[in-house]
């Protein structure tokens, strides 16, 4: 078991290294520039985003006791979409304090939506399934709002919105990395501290309560931290499908569901998987880049089916 965990970790590191090195031959000063100023920061952003989405997915699946829960179950992604559409409808080139308006609005939208759900989750009487329903309700409501904004937008804003909604790792340089890193690192570190109460959740929410877990507080902490991390990621990259859903299931099949292994390994595998998908997206169509969201969705869906089919045997 321990050996398998180590092997998976090594595979993740190899994938990350390969993703930096893969690409057209790069020589001389220009090559140096492309690798160090473009590719490395992009890989770093990919690692941060992939790790956060995957860890939050694993935490939410544990929290909601639902294998379909993901980082966007509580309305975070839907809220970010409304924010982004709003900004794009106004003016896509505006900046606030040097940050793109789209990013700022998406972050705000994501936090607003998840705050609504989190406030509901902290009530003592609510059961996890109620919180899940509240998340779905907020997602539906914000989607309606998003459609409304799209309806009144002009065609240029609509095109920009479509581009945004595909999800991609942007060229944000080291400045973007520096903005994203502390937030993601903080959220992930604090979420990992919740491993023990989450493990008690595995045999049922009420049993965990009887064993001494403060359920409303755990729910509020996990939802709050998870949403904050995901909001930061979605604000920069748009919605990146499937990473939060697939990675925890992949790790569960490979290494079991002891959360002491599942949570940290979801983090590693999430980082490696998203960066690998992004390398794929750079290279698969020569001379053109695909949005990484398309690649994760295209690879993710069949992987999930395969995992479920193999697990049932």
């Amino acid at each position, binding site marked *: 078991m321990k050996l398998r965990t180590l092997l998976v970790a090594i595979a993740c590191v190899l994938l990350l290294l390969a993703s930096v090195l893969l690409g057209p031959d790069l020589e001389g000063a220009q090559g140096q520039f492309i690798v160090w100023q473009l590719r490395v920061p992009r890989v770093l952003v990919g690692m941060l985003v992939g790790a956060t989405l995957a860890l939050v997915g694993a935490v939410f699946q*544990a929290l909601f*006791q639902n*294998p379909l829960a993901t980082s966007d179950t509580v309305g975070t992604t839907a809220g970010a979409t409304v924010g982004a559409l709003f900004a794009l409808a106004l003016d896509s080139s505006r900046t606030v304090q040097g940050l793109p308006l789209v990013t700022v609005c998406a972050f705000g939208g994501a936090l607003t939506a998840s705050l609504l759900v989190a406030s509901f989750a902290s009530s003592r*009487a609510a059961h996890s399934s109620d919180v899940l329903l509240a998340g779905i309700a907020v997602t539906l409501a914000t989607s309606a709002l998003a459609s409304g904004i799209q309806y009144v937008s002009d065609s240029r804003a609509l095109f920009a919105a479509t581009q945004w909604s595909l999800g991609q790792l942007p060229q944000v340089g080291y400045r973007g990395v520096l903005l994203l890193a502390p937030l993601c690192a903080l959220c992930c570190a604090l979420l990992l501290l919740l491993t*023990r*109460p989450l*493990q*008690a959740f*595995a*045999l*049922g929410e*009420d*049993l*965990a*309560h*009887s*064993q*001494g*877990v*403060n*359920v409303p507080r755990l729910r509020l902490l996990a939802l709050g931290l998870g949403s904050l991390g995901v909001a930061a990621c979605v604000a920069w990259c748009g919605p990146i499908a499937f990473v939060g859903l697939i990675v925890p299931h992949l790790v*569960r099949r490979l290494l*079991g*569901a*002891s959360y*002491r292994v599942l949570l940290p390994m979801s983090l590693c595998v999430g980082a490696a998987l998203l960066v690998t998908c992004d390398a794929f997206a750079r290279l698969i169509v020569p001379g053109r880049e695909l949005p990484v969201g398309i690649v994760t969705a295209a690879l993710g869906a069949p992987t999930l089916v395969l995992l479920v089919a193999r697990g049932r045997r």
Partner: protein
Amino acid sequence: MAELEFVDLSVKLAECTLLDRITLRIAPGELVALVGPNGAGKTTLLRAALGLRAPSSGSVRLGNSAVGKLDARSRAAHIAWLPQHIRADEPVTSLESVAAARFRFRESHAQSRSAAERALARVGASAYAERRVTELSGGERQRVAFACLVAQEAEILLFDEPANHLDLAQQLDVYRLLGELWREGRSILCINHDVNLLHQVGDAARVRVVGLRSGSLVFDAPFDAPTLPAQLGNLFGIEMDALQGSEQRFIVARSRSRP
């Protein structure tokens, strides 16, 4: 050691009264068997004791404080619970599940694991400590849940039909184990559907049987009371007989005459 006391407890859900002014005290070291028809409110009573169901009026008290006011960890030091079902769709090993039940202790994972190993050994489940709970049979899963309860090391134990869905030998085992924990000095409140199983706990004469119907207490009698068969019959609306075995009395239902 704190005692568990229900004081004039009522629980209402919308228009429906689940528990109606229940007053019941479980003294330290006592074993109380809770019997009654389906829907009588037995499980609700246990959930109220755990703070999972808030009282509409009255209170559940643990020593000097109301259960709902207690901090979760200290409540868990007093009361542990064996629910009717545990969720088993996460592929976690039995050992990890039982180690997680040690949440109330501030200790290292290695300490939790060794306590979990002892608890699994105690309930006779060591053989499948490293197997995933998703792969266990119903009886094995019940033992793992029992090990969780043991590992929590609480003073008051609540059992919700611990023999449910078990084969005959396993039923006896569960009650024997329950009796062991009781005779070590713990207080127990146990929902029970077959009072004859109570012979397994040892010293059954000290057991109290409490009847609950439609949310109200109907009777409260010692296990060896001569009136118990009639009281049970009355509780379920059937005829019950006492049969004297070589060492113990069995209470059985008389077959209904044809209409």
